[in-house]
């Protein structure tokens, strides 16, 4: 598992990266009440705001962590946004990206580095 400074987790399987948000991010957001996901087969560039996530308190975005093509989205989150708080690092993944160059994931933090990043 790799982590971004935007509190996303990335899990690589072949050339497919599954992306979700960390427990820390889910706690910071509070109760999630709305999720809007990207269309599949969309080409995205690193930094694109591709998911809208709203809690009772506020709206925020999730950005594409890496260039690639959206190949799958987790529609269960649209029907049940609370899943983001219940199981952020498991069932509440947001989307899967097919990447050209999996080695680009090496630049992201590992778990220890991420824990340092959030001050744990």
């Amino acid at each position, binding site marked *: 598992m790799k982590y971004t400074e935007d509190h996303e987790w990335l899990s690589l399987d072949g050339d497919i990266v599954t992306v979700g948000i960390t427990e820390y991010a889910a706690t910071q957001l*509070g109760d999630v009440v*709305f999720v809007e996901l990207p269309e599949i087969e969309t080409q995205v560039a690193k930094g694109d705001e591709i998911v*809208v996530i709203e809690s*009772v*308190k506020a709206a925020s975005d999730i950005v594409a962590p890496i260039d690639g093509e959206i190949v799958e989205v987790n529609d269960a989150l649209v029907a049940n946004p609370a899943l983001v708080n219940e199981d952020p690092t498991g069932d509440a993944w947001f989307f899967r990206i097919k990447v050209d160059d999996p080695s680009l994931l090496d630049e992201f933090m590992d778990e220890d580095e991420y824990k340092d990043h959030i001050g744990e």
Partner: protein
Amino acid sequence: MADTATDSLTELPLAGLHTELGAKFVPFAGWNMPVQYSAGVMTEHLWTRDKAGLFDVSHMAQVRLPKGALEGLEGLVPADLLGLPEGRQRYGVFTNAAGGVLDDLMIAHRAADVFLVVNASRRAHGLAHLRAHLHGVEEVTDRALLALQGPLAEAALAALVPDVAAMRFMDVAVVDWQGADLWISRSGYTGEDGFEISVPAAQAEGFARALLADERVAPVGLGARDSLRLEAGLPLYGQEMDVGISPVEAGQAWSIGKARRAGGARAGGFPGADVILDQIAHGAPNRRVGLSPEGRAPMRGEVTLYATPEGGDAVGRITSGGFGPTLGAPIAIGLITADTPADATLYGDVRGKRLPARQVPLPFVPPGYKR
């Protein structure tokens, strides 16, 4: 998720207790305020609707005026204050010469004085405004202000101070608790029955702990306070009301007493009376509206509203919006041109897409006041 510097923020008298209760703090109007506790906004909101939520609203300004100040205060506020009996409280707004609103406030007529509660964000302005027009304005700085809100608030508070059970909505009383004088009003800003309690700062923590020891009471932060007042259709200064929005447009014309209206015993005599009384008689340019967005996407403050799914001019904007936990759906309050048909579906521009929202009556949740 950036950290905000908290150096210049004022700490609440109960800051230590909030930390102990797992509070997450945010800066608000210059104060370091608990936005939520470990339970989270949703749970705290629903707890307040079901049981009793304890809020620390000590950031609000508490002000005492001399006993005879109601007459002078009528020169600033269009409420019927000379008609306010002793032992009662009334909601009012400070108006400006253009008919806009400078702030809203609670005004209590007590045995010994007149007691006001003014918004934290307008503390300095409100005090200066009062002092410019009235004598003997005294800011109370040695007391905390707590609110206990919800259907079980009476039972929980009466367990400590039994006299409160006899109070009705908007009654005020001074009640002794273990040698501390509590200034209590049966009011609040959640739409629920409940009380606001001004307590000497030195006894505030003991009093709050005594309430929290009751299993019916849980601490509730600023986040749920906002979603509760939104469901209750209650206006927030700076959103539903401001210097450019009249009390008539904000749906607060009810607070302008009959005595202060055209033909009343003391008609007018407040800033902007010509504008406001004309709006009561002939209508205002804009009106407040409750909105129920279709689908799940919340429409938040400043979303532009249209009367058509594409094209056309804007008819207004959302002033407050979000998710209503009691309803399990997004809700919003908007300000739209008065000539917008009342049965028209409106469209809010959310991230470049116009999403439909039905006009619905306010409040979203029926009030639980004990009248």
